[in-house]
């Protein structure tokens, strides 16, 4: 039982960066813009958070700087695929290259440096609940902030005019355009806001998970998040479940070895990626069978103003 709870705690911790990134992806894709640059943006966020943390030893500055930097870098994505109307897929890949290179180049001198990881702050009252208490309410600040972000994203997308407009941009941009809404402005907003969340997801790695710098610190989690956006049906609340499910797979990778189960560590390393492919396949089959179209209808399509559709 104790071990079981430990695994669930680890699942939440490992799932947190995925959750931030998935939320960012959901917001961006709801507005109709695919972001395949998540891995790159997370690396930028991780790098900036680590550098700021080293210099200021202030967690708030580190997270804010990471969000700001990733938001800035995602402007490039916005300019290239919204203003210059290039392929969103190619632009996202370029973003991944860019972020990987940036973090590799500037992170090279940081190898071996360490920062103090975020400490756990139990929430008074709530953390005493059996099972749920330790699993959900005895974590660091960023985990709590991720809960808030889930709520905020849900509220933004479904309860505000801004969110309604963002969602409409992903479904029928030409209608929005004819109503006098700027497709460009809303999509830009979504790309940058999404990019900032993805950057915070990246920041979680050096600030909590691995408090020292290693090259490629995110280890492909950005790509898992790309798949999680689909798995979560472009919904912030379902993103929560998806992220923790994959957090569980990542947690098992660490814990099964401690239990002394004789599996090659490299097979455990494959587990999250294989699981992602498997789940993605099942979700696609399910959608095909039920004939439901949950994907934003205009996702990935270049919007040409004034063109007939």
């Amino acid at each position, binding site marked *: 039982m104790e071990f079981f709870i430990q695994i669930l705690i680890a699942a939440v911790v490992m799932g947190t960066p995925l959750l931030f990134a998935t939320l960012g992806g959901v917001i961006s894709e709801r507005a109709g813009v695919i972001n395949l640059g998540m891995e790159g943006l997370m690396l930028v966020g991780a790098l900036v958070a680590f550098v700021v943390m080293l210099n200021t030893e202030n967690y708030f500055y580190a997270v804010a700087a990471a969000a700001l930097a990733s938001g800035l870098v995602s402007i490039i994505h916005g300019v290239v695929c919204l203003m210059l109307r290039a392929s969103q897929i190619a*632009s996202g890949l370029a973003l991944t290259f860019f972020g990987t290179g940036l973090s590799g180049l500037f992170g090279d001198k940081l190898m071996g440096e360490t920062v103090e990881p975020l400490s756990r702050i139990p929430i008074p009252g709530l953390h005493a609940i059996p099972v749920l208490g330790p699993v959900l309410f005895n974590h660091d600040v960023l985990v709590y902030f991720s809960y808030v972000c889930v709520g905020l994203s849900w509220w933004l997308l479904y309860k505000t005019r801004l969110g309604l407009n963002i969602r409409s941009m992903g479904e029928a941009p030409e209608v929005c355009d004819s109503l006098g809404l700027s497709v460009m402005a809303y999509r830009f907003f979504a790309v940058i806001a999404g990019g900032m969340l993805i950057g915070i997801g990246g920041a979680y790695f050096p600030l909590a998970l691995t408090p020292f710098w290693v090259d490629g610190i995110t280890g492909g989690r950005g790509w898992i998040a790309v798949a999680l956006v689909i798995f979560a049906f472009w919904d912030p609340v379902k993103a929560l479940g998806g992220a923790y499910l994959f957090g569980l797979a990542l947690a098992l990778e660490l814990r099964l070895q401690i239990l002394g189960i004789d599996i090659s560590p490299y097979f455990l390393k494959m587990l999250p990626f294989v699981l992602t492919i498997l789940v993605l396949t099942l979700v696609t089959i399910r959608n095909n069978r039920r004939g439901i179209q949950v994907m934003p209808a205009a996702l990935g399509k270049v919007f040409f103003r004034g063109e007939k559709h």
Partner: protein
Amino acid sequence: MGRALVLSGAFLLVLIISWLFFLAVGIEPLAAYKIVGEEIFLTKYGWQDLLVKMTPLMFTGLAVALAAQMRQWNIGAEGQFHMGTFAMTWVALHFDGKLPDGMLIVLMLIMAIIGGGLWGSIPGYLKARFGVNEIITSLLLNYVAAAWIDHLLFGAWRDPGSNNFPITREFSTAAQLPNFGNTSIHAGLIIAFIFVLIVAWILWKTQLGFKIRLTGDNPDAARYAGVNIRTLTILVFAASGAIAGLAGFSEVAGIHYRLQQNISIGYGYTGIIVAWLARNHPLGVIFSAFFMSIIFVSAEVLQIEYGLPISMVYLYQGIILFTVLGTEIFTEYRLRITRFLL
């Protein structure tokens, strides 16, 4: 013409950003450019290295371009590269000395094709059968393949005499590709050119190639014309993976003569850019592979001279791809500037 202009622009941007970076880390930019230019173009080794680095890029670029002719994204060339090296190394380690002369290397080549091809057909099958997004699956499989290679290198295949380094034993000469004279350029380059020609011939001179291009341009028309898109998708992905697997074969049998970590320094990912720069044309791949090879060798020179990390290559690749994408609107459309923005 437009493309040459864009590439020069991208190159200029790379120079400018490097300038800023050099200043930031305290390197004299002009001196750095001079060293890189001289090392690459004025020395024998520079030219050799350009052709050596160009070889895997031709394969991976060709792999991505072939799939892209059908409007399919194969961004798993990195993993297919690794599975190619896995399959050929298995042959090299188990059949060394048991086959007649010349057979071993041929069998290794075939195995690399099979290894990469099977790995590539996984995203192809999932896409064709269930419609699963091939971008994500092909990319995720890269991580699986890398873990599989690590599993072997840190386990069963580790050379006992390697002082615990994760490398296999060196292959015998029967498992090595011949070099040109005294240079480091090896027969892999010839094989790359042959495959470029084969793919170009298939695409434009055979019915199969017509079907691939038709499906890429207009899947509905292809379906009405009786093209079996499912089978074709799997086939193209398998072929694409096989070519990427050959990149692994050429690197291991042509340069390293053993399986070890980091044989691919991102060649598979760079294949995406090589293909994009070539507009997915096999013959164009020759030139864009050469162009990207310049970037790789430059980064290598900078690594040796100034100790800069090789991951710089990725940054340059990002900048180049962004530049090419950003200027496509100017080369593909005639714009009226009046209603350009917003």
